[in-house]
């Protein structure tokens, strides 16, 4: 995977977030403050602007620039979290012009670690970690099993989607929704839903299904 692969990922993610903006906001209306879709849409628009203004030369630079823009422009808790995820990925990739599937796994593991360190959430706390962590695990396993990139990313996306669905019965223990206590049960976590979109975008960046 080269720089243009990661630019394609960002573009796919931005498009998906824009298309799902109202849905994400609806999910956030149930257990948050009804801004998650708008937050991410604004954030990814800023990312695309930055990438157009100062075109990055490496995969790592794409991700670091994207992360910094998300941190600055999202405005909600998902900004520092996704921003940290992309920046940690970018840092893990360093200056390399070409990224192997194994490198991608390592970078996503670094991203997950950064998100969990910043937000303090474990799996089961009804946050985006509940989609992120199983997706990274599934990808690592598939890559280790020698799956091709498309299949490995398909597996990761399915795991993210399943993780997001599995947040429905959970009670939130981190983020705004945690203030609702038991009333947060019965709703899908908006951040977990957007994480699934971002993994699906990564899958699409690898080529048609």
């Amino acid at each position: 995977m080269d720089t243009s692969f990661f630019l394609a990922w960002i573009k796919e993610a931005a498009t998906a977030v824009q298309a799902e903006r109202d849905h994400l906001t609806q999910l956030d209306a149930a257990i948050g403050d009804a801004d998650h879709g708008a937050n991410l849409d604004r954030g990814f628009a800023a990312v695309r602007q930055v990438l157009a203004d100062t075109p990055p030369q490496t995969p790592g630079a794409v991700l670091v620039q994207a992360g910094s823009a998300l941190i600055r422009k999202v405005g909600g808790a998902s900004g520092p979290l996704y921003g940290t995820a992309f920046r940690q990925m970018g840092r893990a990739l360093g200056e390399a012009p070409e990224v192997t599937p194994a490198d991608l796994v390592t970078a996503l593991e670094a991203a997950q670690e950064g998100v969990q360190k910043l937000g303090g959430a474990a799996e089961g706390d009804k946050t985006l970690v509940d989609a992120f962590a199983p997706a990274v695990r599934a990808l690592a396993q598939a890559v280790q099993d020698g799956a091709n990139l498309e299949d490995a990313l398909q597996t990761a996306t399915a795991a993210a989607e399943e993780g997001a669905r599995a947040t429905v019965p959970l009670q939130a223990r981190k983020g705004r929704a945690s203030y609702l206590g038991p009333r947060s049960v019965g709703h899908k976590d908006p951040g977990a839903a957007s994480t699934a979109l971002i993994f699906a975008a990564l899958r699409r960046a690898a080529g048609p299904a």
Partner: protein
Amino acid sequence: MDGQARPMVGIVIVSHSSRLAEEVAALVREFGGANVPVAAAGGTDDGRLGTSLDKVITAVESVDQGAGVVLIPDLGSSVLTAKLVEEPGSVVIADVPLVEGAIAAAVTVGGGGSLPDVLSSAEEARTFRKL
């Protein structure tokens, strides 16, 4: 007193609401005195509810006299953004009630307290009873 003012600890109020941050900063000035370096970092760059990293960074810079800065966040994105600008030993989050912690911090800053003094007095606000 050598004519040179001793550097004071800075206070940054980080709230998802710009007006709430401003009001709490006003309270800090009321209790700590007009000299207490305090800044409000509330809301997003474009005036919505939320947090702006740039506002927080600008606020920290504006109150940093060299004696350290305490960040007092309300919740959610305020806390996460504050964590991104933490620098152990110099720019530190106080995990305290917003208003009561800010008042306690203000008084200690006004009394010339060090960063650890300010943090521990803000922590004490948690147990202060009003009745």
